[in-house]
């Protein structure tokens, strides 16, 4: 191999390596520059740690009642005060993080599974199948989602699994529509054409060429879906149809505290702030990921 003097093999390799930063490496670099998204990542990491720690240790037993005078505000023994049953609020917030994260992530797992399959079927095979799927998706967009989730939980029973199912039931179409749109656009691209003329089967085109290219928007959609699911669970709990007690849920804690808001606002404020911060972190992270993964859309 003839090369110009001074250009060693090593130099070529280094140059190539430098230019070929992957999409993900690029995205990570852009995400790190976004301070809000970075702060959100740190916050969410801490939240996950708290949820894990809560499994093994909380300052007090979360369901132990009367460990301090009821309605007592924050003190050194009870950093966030105690609630209307005299239970330690900090311990309950820690366990509530578990519920919120389980609901948020669990829902998205179902939403991704259903949305990807349905979206791919509609986008890749088009035709009659697409007509049916698109109609169903549009019907789901027209229904009052929260009310359907509420009714499902009421009819099927109150448990974490059913709540996750009910929320996913009202959210799958967001992912399905996104995957369908991506698939429709990607299947017309030249590289898919090339793969097809090379004799690739539908399976291979879908899993090797279409899905990997649709992954970015899907990740963004899932990140935005998590706070929506957490919000839904909080709504259900607030209305008394969430995770059954004594398992603490932020929504239910806020609902309990609301009755005593005049005398001890800390009971409602603690879960309200925890909830808002978590939702905010997910939303900022979602925004940051969108900007990082799709620089063309950058404002």
């Amino acid at each position, binding site marked *: 191999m003839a090369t110009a003097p001074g250009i060693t093999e090593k130099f070529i390799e280094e140059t190539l390596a430098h230019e070929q930063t992957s999409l993900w490496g690029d995205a990570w670099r852009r995400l790190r520059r976004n301070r809000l998204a970075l702060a959100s990542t740190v916050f969410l990491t801490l939240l996950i740690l708290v949820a894990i720690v809560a499994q093994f240790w909380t300052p007090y037993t979360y369901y132990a009642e009367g460990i301090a005078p009821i309605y007592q505000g924050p003190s050194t023994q009870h950093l966030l005060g105690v609630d209307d049953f005299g239970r330690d609020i900090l311990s309950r917030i820690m366990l509530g993080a578990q519920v919120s994260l389980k609901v948020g992530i669990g829902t998205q797992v179902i939403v991704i599974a259903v949305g990807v399959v349905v979206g791919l079927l509609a986008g890749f095979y088009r035709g009659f199948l697409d007509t049916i799927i698109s109609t169903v998706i549009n019907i789901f967009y027209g229904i009052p989602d*929260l009310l359907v989730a*509420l009714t499902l939980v009421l*009819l099927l029973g109150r448990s974490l699994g059913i709540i996750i199912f009910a929320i996913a039931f009202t959210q799958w179409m967001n992912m399905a529509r996104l995957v369908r749109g991506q698939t429709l656009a990607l299947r017309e691209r030249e590289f898919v054409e090339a793969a097809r003329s090379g004799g690739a089967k539908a399976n291979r085109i879908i899993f090797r060429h279409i899905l990997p290219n649709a992954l970015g928007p899907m990740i963004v959609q899932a990140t935005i879906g998590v706070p929506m699911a957490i919000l839904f669970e909080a709504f259900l709990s*607030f209305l008394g149809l969430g995770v059954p007690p004594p398992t603490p849920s932020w929504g239910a804690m806020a609902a309990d505290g609301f009755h005593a808001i005049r005398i001890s606002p800390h009971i409602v404020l603690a879960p309200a702030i925890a909830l808002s911060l978590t939702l905010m972190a997910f939303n900022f992270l979602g925004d940051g990921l969108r900007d990082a993964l799709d620089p063309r859309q950058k404002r």
Partner: protein
Amino acid sequence: MFTRGALLYIGQRLVLIVFTAVAVSSIVFLGVHRLPGDALLNERRPDPAAEAALLHYYHLDLPLAQQYVRYLTGILHGDLGESYVNRGVQITPLLLREARVSAEVGAAAIAFTIGLGVVLGVIAAVRQNTWVDYLATTTSVIGYSMPNFVIASLLFLLFGVFLYQWTGGAVYYNSGWTGSWGTLDQIIVPGFALGFPYASIVARLTRASMLEVIRQDYVRTARAKGLTARIVIIRHALRNALIPVVTILGPLVIGIVTGSVVIENIFGIPGLGKEFATSILNRDYNIVIGLFTFYAIIIALANLLVDLLYTVIDPRIRY
């Protein structure tokens, strides 16, 4: 204002809405009667004779097909049946009365959503990448990250508790609903809590589409011929920037309908949302089915209104 074609289109849509309402109530009806928590049938009562009489009274002893036909006939006559819990209470007039209360709060919420959202969005776009923009953008993320019951709690603390303490009890907000029409403060505070999260979304959308529009040639032309920035923004740019905003008015109405379930409970407003929460917890299934039918009609009408709004805002669109 409407051409013959437009009227025909509206007529078609109205017929479609009737079908949607029947379809929705059928699905909920069959769902409620088929799913595990079967209506009244599974609930235990002490006296078998009384139970039989009760089931007979509500025609629940008939086969499902017959019950369904009865229900459909009722719906087509505008009769949603009778409450399972409060016997003798007819559902249609009850819901109509509550719908007016919800409409008052909902209208305030929509006014906040659109007014606040558009103003924030326009300001952020015009002052792009200044601290005003960052403030407006950050506020909007905070806005839609706060559940409406959190906003409600904060408003209640501010106006109900702190204002009471500061003014020595002279001026303060008290939740509830006096008389059949609410007073202004009874409408505005819940309306704000209901509308604020959506105002944030509207603000984001307005900002994005405004940024696109103000770079268009016709906006530059308008500026070049000597119009002031204010007039160009309001008369030329905003009108086109609002088109994507109109698109989300449909989902917005759904959001306000579902949000009202929480907000009306918090503020003690006797509207459809409170009725929904109460009847679903009481397992008053007839009212639940009726409410879903009602909501389906409201949402369908709102969507029709949105489609008609397009023609107003963009004259190229015709039906």
